[in-house]
């Protein structure tokens, strides 16, 4: 009985924290996008939103998945960390490469050339219009 009560409490805490973090992220974003002149600069907000998401990930890992609570060889945690490493190499590595490729291989002239050549109509300049 006590075990299931403990489990119940863990789910409730996890749920309330997750809900709170979601709402904070939502409110921060709506304040920003409702303001015409922008309430605060975009970069700190981006960092704040990503931090909130990672915090919620950790909350759910602890309260929903109970990660780290399994018995001795802790293979779940080990495979989780291994996954993080693979994601780091594959996903962030790809992003790193792609942004540099973009930078090195897509000067503005090439961009406009392609648009003219392919008959792509650009209604509004896609470079930070608002």
């Amino acid at each position: 009985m006590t075990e299931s009560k403990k489990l119940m409490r863990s789910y409730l805490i996890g749920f309330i924290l997750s809900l709170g973090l979601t709402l904070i992220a939502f409110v921060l974003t709506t304040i920003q996008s409702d303001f015409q002149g922008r309430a605060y600069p975009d970069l700190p907000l981006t960092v704040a939103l990503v931090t909130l998401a990672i915090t919620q990930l950790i909350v759910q890992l602890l309260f929903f998945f109970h990660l780290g609570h399994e018995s001795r060889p802790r293979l779940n945690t080990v495979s989780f960390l291994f996954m993080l490493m693979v994601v780091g190499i594959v996903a962030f590595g790809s992003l790193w490469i792609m942004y540099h490729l973009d930078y090195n291989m897509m000067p503005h002239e090439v961009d406009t050339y392609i648009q003219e050549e392919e008959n792509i109509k650009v209604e509004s300049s896609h470079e930070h219009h608002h």
Partner: protein
Amino acid sequence: MSHDAAAVKHEEEFTKTTLGFWVYLMTDCVLFACLFATYAVLRNGTAGGPTGASIFDLNFILVETILLLTSSLTTGLALVALKSKQKKLLWASLGLTFVLGASFLAMELYEFGQLLHEGYGPQASAFLTAYFTLVGTHGFHIAIGLLWLLVMVYFLYKRGVTKGFEKRLTMFALFWHFLDVIWIFIFTLVYLLGALS
């Protein structure tokens, strides 16, 4: 003695199955990470079409998010009910999970339908291709999860609470929590950050 030994063997097998399923989830994380990376690279490739800011309705997405988060809680409640042998709570929480999950999926399909109707399908731009692939893959997982839940509930009805059911419900809870975690990142990286661009 032999009864104890059988219990230990069952416990061991249970741990093995959970670990195997967990490893599957980790590989699925890698799949989603690749889709996220693709989206991040292509998100500015709107080809003169709509940007995220002009097509995302944040209030709509917030409701979806809360539905999915609540369904994650009700899955947990099903596990609590299983541990404390509360049959009614078990049925209620499984039912709620299904209703919440199905509502989430219905809202997502409605959103996709709206976009397609306006001519903003996956073929409209690189941004939309990446968007539909990422969010659609998540939605596909949700659909599979709902099917799984239905099959599980059918066998619960037919055979009652068996060892097999316990195992399946534990795996299902892991799967469902995993989908909620992926959604946190879709919510933040695709919708919230998309609304700012």
